[in-house]
């Protein structure tokens, strides 16, 4: 028994990522064709040479046919996965295991979501028939509960908290302004952010991530074969996924200042990757900033800051692009929106660029660290799933 991981057994040898945004002129088919074409070209592989596919999408299609039809696949295995907002990461995780098991040589993980076709604001779900007792809160409402809970627990006053949340949004938009694939490609002033109309609790519109369409894809092969495809493969160091017991909302002990699922999945991932001090060892972290207080809490849950101190670290610029640990250097969900199935692979795409030193110069991280982390959260405080991966530019010693 145990979580052993597949450290350095598989590697990413090609990736693609579409621009994220309101793609009124593109279908789901168009988006997956764009991302997979780029990923195949990046690895120098023809689609017929891919042995199996994993497609992550929450609601933009069902079954493997969602991918096999537009790609004209020649009777290949295609799995379609869903794991809430961690869907894209889940497609990647399962694809990696398939290669590590020896079942396939060359596989592709694809994530896609086309949210803008729904006509609704925010995310929508089609829950299974229920008894009517499920809590019906919007995502902003559920995540807004983090802010007052954190304030009360750590004695942060309301204005200080507003400044902290504002700075997180400001930082991510500042990074996104340097990213041609982002949905929002411009900086937003702190004044505009903190005066934006309130959506839920203390959260204004700029505390919330956008709604967009997008797709991203990754080519995965055995690590020993990786150099046949690229000089700079990215090695998979850790993959951890946790589904919590989902009893937070009815547990009087749950205080809305932490995601235990994130704590557990990050500890598991660090053990797999042999990381002892994530803040010191990671070159970058792409985390699930669905709302600004989420990113604040994640800094502590992922071990980047001591409990009760992340708010000070945020204000001090620790997680800025040029800070001690760059968090969301691509602009995060804040700048990209959150096309569910695509987000996890979009985060991985930033690690791919950064660790290969292929990011645009204005946002290329220049330290000599070789590890990147992606983190995906699905659900809401107290009832969620969490995914953490660690990838690296070099095999371990």
């Amino acid at each position: 028994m145990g979580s052993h991981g597949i450290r350095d057994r598989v590697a990413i040898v090609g990736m693609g990522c579409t621009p994220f945004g309101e793609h009124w002129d593109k279908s789901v088919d168009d988006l997956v064709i764009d991302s997979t074409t780029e990923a195949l070209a990046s690895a120098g592989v023809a689609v017929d040479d891919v042995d199996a596919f994993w497609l992550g999408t929450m609601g933009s299609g069902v079954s493997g046919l969602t991918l096999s039809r537009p790609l004209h696949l020649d009777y290949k295995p295609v799995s379609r996965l869903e794991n809430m907002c961690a869907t894209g990461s889940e497609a990647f995780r399962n694809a990696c295991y398939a290669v590590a098991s020896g079942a396939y040589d060359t596989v592709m993980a694809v994530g896609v979501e086309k949210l803008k076709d729904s006509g609704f604001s925010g995310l929508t779900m089609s829950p299974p028939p229920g008894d009517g007792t499920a809590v019906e809160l919007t995502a902003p409402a559920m995540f807004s509960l983090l802010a007052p809970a954190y304030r009360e627990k750590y004695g942060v006053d309301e204005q200080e908290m507003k400044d902290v949340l504002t700075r997180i949004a400001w930082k991510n938009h500042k990074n996104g302004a340097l990213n041609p694939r982002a949905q929002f490609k411009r900086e937003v002033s702190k004044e505009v952010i903190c005066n934006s109309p309130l959506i839920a609790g203390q959260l204004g519109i700029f505390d919330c991530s956008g709604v967009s369409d997008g797709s991203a894809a990754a080519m995965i092969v055995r690590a020993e074969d990786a150099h046949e495809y690229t000089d700079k493969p990215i090695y998979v160091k850790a993959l951890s996924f946790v589904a919590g017991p989902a009893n937070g909302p009815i547990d009087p002990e749950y205080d809305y200042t932490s995601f235990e699922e994130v704590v557990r999945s990050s500890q598991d991932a660090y053990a797999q990757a042999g990381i002892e001090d994530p803040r010191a060892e990671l070159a970058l972290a792409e985390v699930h900033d669905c709302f600004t207080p989420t990113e604040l809490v994640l800094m502590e849950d992922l071990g980047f800051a001591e409990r009760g101190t992340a708010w000070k670290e945020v204000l001090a610029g620790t997680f800025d692009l040029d800070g001690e640990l760059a968090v969301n250097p691509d602009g995060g969900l804040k700048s990209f929106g959150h096309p569910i199935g695509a987000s996890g692979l979009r985060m991985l795409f930033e690690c791919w660029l950064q660790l290969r030193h292929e990011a645009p110069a204005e946002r290329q991280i220049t330290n000599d660290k070789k590890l990147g982390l992606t983190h995906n959260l699905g659900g809401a405080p107290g009832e969620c799933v969490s995914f953490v991966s660690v990838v690296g530019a070099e095999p371990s010693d």
Partner: protein
Amino acid sequence: MSGVLSYGTYVPYYRLQRSAIAAALGTPSGKGSRAVASSDEDTTTMAVEAGRVAMRGLADGVAPGAVYFATADPAYLDKTNATAIHVALALPDDTAAYDMVGSVRSGVGALRAALDAKQPTLAVLSDLRTGLAGGNDERDGGDAAAAIVCGPGSDEAPVLAELVASASVTAEFMDRWRVPGARSSTVWEERFGGHAYAPLAEQALTDALKAADTTPDGLDHLIVTGPQARGVRAALAKSGARPEAVVDDLSATVGNTGTAHPGLLLSSVLDAAEPGALIALVVLADGADVLVFRATDALAQHRASPSVAQWIASGRDDLDYQRFLTWRESLVREGPRRPDPVSPAGPPRCVESSGSSGSSGAAAPSAAPATCRRHVSA
């Protein structure tokens, strides 16, 4: 000896000041405020709240043999609403549950039926009163619920107020009505209602006091209530009761809660009545019903908590009239660009309501409400 064994009330949190209506519509300003059920409340949820208070006041192991739910504004037609109250109160499945819905008079009817029962019986009276914007019903109405467990007393559940006499007069006339599906009631001219109700009230009260072997000035508390304000005033004027015996009708703080009002006012009296106090409850609705109670020594140890006065004091009275109209669907506003909430589905609700039978109720935290418990552990 039969009578009240336990009781509880619920007054929703929000109050609409009558001056807010006047300010919006340019109508003459009324005094005080009315209680308003929130957008996520209906007569069933308010009934559950009141029922919880009443059940808390009942000794462990005493379960009502039946639930009678009375309201003029049921959440469902055709389907029984009392079953939802039954499951929310976690009553045993051999407790019967029935609705008495559609008219204001069903409130006192449920109370009478519970008082006549041979075993403890829960009468839950709940109403959500509304009417067209600017009308009397909107201004004078109120939303609330009262739950009263009645039956023969026992050592575990002593009688708090003994029923000493009752009387009823039934009359068919067109003073107030609402056809199914209509948004508001049609009410005949005020003076006609006053004319119609006065003799009915006099007849029923006379009969009841005679049966109780007392006179009007022997009453310590006199409640007269009904949707026809002029008839109520006339009945009070002619009652012969001492002025200090007349019970505050809560019009200044809660409004007239229709079907629930007899239960709410009776509860407000039980909150403070001395042992031995003689209480007459007169309800004028499509006739007249009178119930005469005598408070017992047990009452002082079994008063409801919260009391009616505590509910009233715990509300907030700054509700916007526009919001009130929106909640009542009188003001049709653009909704959020979001899908409509999903309605409950039949089979999951059936499975998850079956609690103790089957495995789904097993690993529940004891603090969780019944419905959550089943939902979470499924």
